[in-house]
């Protein structure tokens, strides 16, 4: 549906380098990256606001690289909605319909259908300056969706909302995608948003796309340290591949038979990515499921989003983080105070390695 092929863009002292991105019809692609990484420039380039230096953009199978924005049939929703302040909600939604030659009756019908679908029927005659954040974003969505764009492009659509509206609209986006079957490219720096919504994930930093794939695959096997960090993998520890058997770390040997290919083109110096859920406090599974078992000291505890985050240290100096739910804490039946020594196991199934040289 949308194919971006090796495009490069320079805008002032900002550059996009050789970006390739393929969003298939019906896909919900999330482009994840930190602020200031060029996500918005990429989006505006796809829309046709910035000229490309090289590369091509295909929309719906046609070369759209040189098409003006009004001929591309893409919908855009910005973080701060960008509603027309001089028009009512109804006229905002009708804006594109009238330009595309719909009659007055057709326009009214389509606007009201879309307003019903997004539950904003009761605010159609309001002025846009008086809307709440959630309402504003629904109007912006309605204005774009009512034109049935080939691809809906969302630029941090939830970032300006308060938490309650954000949670509601996140579910709403999922529903829109499912019920309308529309192709979506959503850019964000928010991990929760990315993993909640994405059917496909692309990770971007400093004007480059670092990795693409299904969210599960990217999370399971980040390509390098940067990707792992952007994906919020809690623990990255230095390790050395010990042939076929596993890895050597400051924790001691990690038993990971067959995890490392041992081919000569791979350097033996690696980082191990250990997601928090793989750091199990009081291991209770079969021993062979753990790559490592031992004692660790509780260094700190924090409460975050209803979870308790534990900071653990090993006598070798290595630090690991993990989070426990209230239910897990109540099942543990041991005090989680600072200074306590806990038995800890590292689950084999979630640990992955990335080479150190391109990190």
């Amino acid at each position, binding site marked *: 549906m949308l194919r971006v092929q090796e495009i490069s863009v320079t805008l002032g002292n900002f550059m996009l380098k050789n970006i390739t991105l393929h969003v298939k019809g019906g896909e919900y692609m999330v482009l994840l990256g930190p602020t200031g990484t060029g996500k918005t420039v990429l989006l*505006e380039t796809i*829309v*046709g*606001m910035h000229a490309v230096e090289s590369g091509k953009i295909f929309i719906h199978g046609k070369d759209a690289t040189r098409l*003006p*924005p*009004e001929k*591309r049939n*893409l*919908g*855009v929703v*910005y973080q701060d909605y*960008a509603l*027309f*302040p*001089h028009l009512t909600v109804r006229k905002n939604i009708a*804006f*594109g319909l009238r*330009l*595309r030659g719909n009659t007055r009756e057709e326009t009214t019908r389509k606007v009201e259908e879309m307003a019903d679908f997004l539950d904003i029927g009761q605010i159609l005659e309001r002025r846009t300056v008086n809307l709440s954040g959630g309402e504003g974003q629904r109007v912006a969505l309605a*204005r*774009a969706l009512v*034109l049935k764009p080939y691809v809906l492009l969302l630029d941090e659509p939830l970032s300006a909302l308060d938490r309650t509206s954000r949670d509601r609209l996140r579910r709403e986006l999922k529903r829109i995608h499912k019920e309308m079957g529309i192709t979506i490219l959503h850019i964000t720096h928010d991990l929760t948003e990315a993993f909640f919504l994405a059917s496909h994930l692309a990770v971007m930093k400093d004007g480059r796309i670092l990795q693409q794939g299904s969210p599960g695959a990217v999370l399971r096997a980040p390509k390098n340290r940067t990707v792992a960090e952007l994906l919020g993998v809690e623990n990255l520890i230095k390790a050395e591949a010990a042939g076929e058997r596993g890895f050597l770390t400051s924790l001691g040997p990690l038993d990971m038979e067959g995890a490392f290919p041992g081919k000569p083109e791979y350097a033996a110096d690696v980082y191990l990515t250990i997601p928090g859920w793989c750091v199990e406090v009081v291991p209770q599974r079969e021993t062979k499921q753990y790559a490592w078992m031992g004692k660790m000291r509780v260094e700190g505890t924090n409460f975050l989003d209803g979870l308790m985050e534990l900071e653990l240290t090993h006598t070798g100096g290595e630090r690991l983080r993990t989070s426990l739910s209230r239910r897990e804490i109540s099942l543990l039946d041991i005090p989680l105070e600072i200074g306590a020594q806990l038995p800890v196991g590292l689950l084999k199934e979630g640990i992955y390695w990335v080479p150190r040289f391109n990190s």
Partner: protein
Amino acid sequence: MKNFKPVIWGLSTVVLLMVVIPLIRMVLAADPGVLRATVADPEVIQSIFLTLRSALWATIFCAIFGIPLAYALARWELPFKSVVQGIIDLPVMIPHTAAGIALLMVYGQRFFMGKAFSSLGISFVGTEAGISLAMAFVSLPFLVNAARDGFLSIDPRLERVARTLGASPWKAFFKVSLPLAWRAILSGGIMMWARGISEFGAVIVLAYHPMTAPVLIWERFEAYGLKYARPVAVFLILLCLGIFALLRGIAARKREA
């Protein structure tokens, strides 16, 4: 810091009084009888209408050519933007009599441009067109700068969204940018018109006759003295105040709507 507010207010009052006292003094000193005679004086009426009309033409002319320039200055990366901006502001800096002389040298009969216009039947020396030209030259910055600020205050993404919704650059300009900048443009237009009405220096060089109100005031002052110049001045001031209060009111109401 206790006396912060009183000091700020005290200083502000000085400026306001500096403007208001002379105006009030002049209005109060006017002899009602002479003022009534002045209002009935056809020469005065004619010159005031001439002034209002030529300033309006100057404003309309500059709106047509100046609004696009203001938009370009607000939106586009131009290689010599600061130079262009400087050129726009130039008429405010130079003495207006000098501006009048410069205009005379270009639009007078001795230069090819003046000759060209003359062959089309348009003369700028001693005509209403000349008065408008002089007014336009000196008051252009008010309109262009206000319109530029108006466009600058609009989020450029509104235009981008309009484009993605199917608007051509023209449609985006007329349906989004212009309506949103309209108030700033209107208030700049009012300022330009007002500045045009009060212009004396450039006008008198290019066209002593037909006489605009400021020239008439000057002429009566020179020929008959203060007593006869004052009623014309008072009449002009009152008329202008009335019109501007009205237009400002309209502009302000649009803001609230």
